[in-house]
């Protein structure tokens, strides 16, 4: 059965599929996060938040054939949740990894993370849960994630100066002169040759004008 609707996940909890009860992943998660088991999650193995869920593919699934692929495609078609696929990449299942990656990341556009065993999977789930919480409740907000771009207002002056210096024949001194006279690159571009000649010499004015 495909359940497409999102599940309400309370703060700091993970909702796990009944089939994982007693497994190594579940045991390791317990104590770190509050794990609730529920029946009828359908294709999904763990719900981390209202929007994010995890599909776990074991080594055995990989080796057994294409059943897991059907499951992923069905999930992708049925659900609008962000699906993170965790796959057990071991020495045995390694040979299938490239194919899986192509399907999951390049064709389905989902996230794929390899782990070596269930212990690593649980470690990863714990980290994902904690970053979900940070994102959702705005603790320290964006600063907490080192890979999110922080908007910082920087004065554009040094950059404008550097750009003007790229015009042939213009060094730092002339660039300053030109910018003081014309104000912006836009106005500099629309300056007549006479105006340029008043600021800098005739040769350079010609150079700038033809540029």
């Amino acid at each position, binding site marked *: 059965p495909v359940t497409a609707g999102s599940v309400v996940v309370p703060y700091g909890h993970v909702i796990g599929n009944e089939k994982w009860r007693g497994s190594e992943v579940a045991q390791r998660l317990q104590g770190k996060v509050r794990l609730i088991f529920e029946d009828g999650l359908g294709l999904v193995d763990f719900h981390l938040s209202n929007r994010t869920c995890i599909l776990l593919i074991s080594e055995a699934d990989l080796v057994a054939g294409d059943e897991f692929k059907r499951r992923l495609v069905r999930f992708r078609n049925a659900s609008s949740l962000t699906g*993170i696929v965790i796959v057990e990449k071991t020495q045995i299942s*390694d040979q299938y*990894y*490239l194919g899986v*990656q*192509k399907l999951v*990341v*390049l064709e389905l556009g989902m*996230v*794929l*993370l*390899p*782990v*070596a065993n269930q212990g*690593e999977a649980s*470690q*990863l789930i*714990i*980290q*994902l849960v*904690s*970053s*979900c919480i940070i*994102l959702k409740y705005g603790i320290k907000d964006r600063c907490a*994630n*080192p*890979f*999110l*771009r*922080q908007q910082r207002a920087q*004065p*554009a*002056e*040094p*950059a*404008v*100066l*550097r*750009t003007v*210096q*790229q*015009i*042939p024949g213009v060094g*730092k*001194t002339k660039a*300053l*002169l030109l*910018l*003081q006279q014309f*104000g*912006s*690159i*836009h106005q*500099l*571009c*629309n300056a007549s040759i006479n105006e340029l000649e008043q600021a800098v010499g005739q040769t350079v004015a010609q150079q700038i004008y033809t*540029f």
Partner: protein
Amino acid sequence: LARVCRVPAEQSPALCVLADSREICSGPAVISCLRAVHGLRVQVCSLGTSDYVVSSRLAVDRLFQSELLSPGSRSKLSQRLQRLQGLFERICVIVETDRVRPGETARIPQRTQYYAGVLSALVQAGIRILFSSCQEETAALLKDLALGEHRKDAAIQVPTEPEGHRRDILSFYLSIPTLSYGAALNLCHSFGSVAAVANSSVPALAAGARLSRAQAEELHRFLHHDFDLQLLPQPLPAKGK
């Protein structure tokens, strides 16, 4: 290496990938594989920011797994990726397994909690992650990415080697901090002169350089920025020196 495998370049519909010049040292097999096996046009240029540019909006960074595993390289990595996010709509990292030096046995890297944290931060930041076990696989992944972007009509389709006067103009565009190499090439190609760019409206810039609306606005603001000498960081030497 740069001149050897030039044959695929003759097929005009060949996909084009820009590679950073540092990659000649660190990933020679990636570049030669892209050219020889996959028949892509690889243009080596000094991108500075990312290792590869696959389309006008997608940048790819090639990382070693050890870089993700060691907390020491965290600040460098985050700086790099934050910068990329300012320039590109989409970012992908290819995590490559470290090469084993001759005489050394392959160590199975100890996955730490730190590693799990880095991965989840990347996921949350919306950065695509691909894993590769060697340079050849990385090349195949790059080709797949380029193909995908081509299907979405975002491939690099302009000539990548401007000549003469155009080279000066390219370096002018490249010095604008919010423009990526691909966007600068597009500007070079779709506008006749710098003045034409400076006099363009935001939508015209977005269409010509294939930028997003926000990026085009930023470029427009930059070109119209009123220069104020007082805001320069350090006092400049007096005139006449």
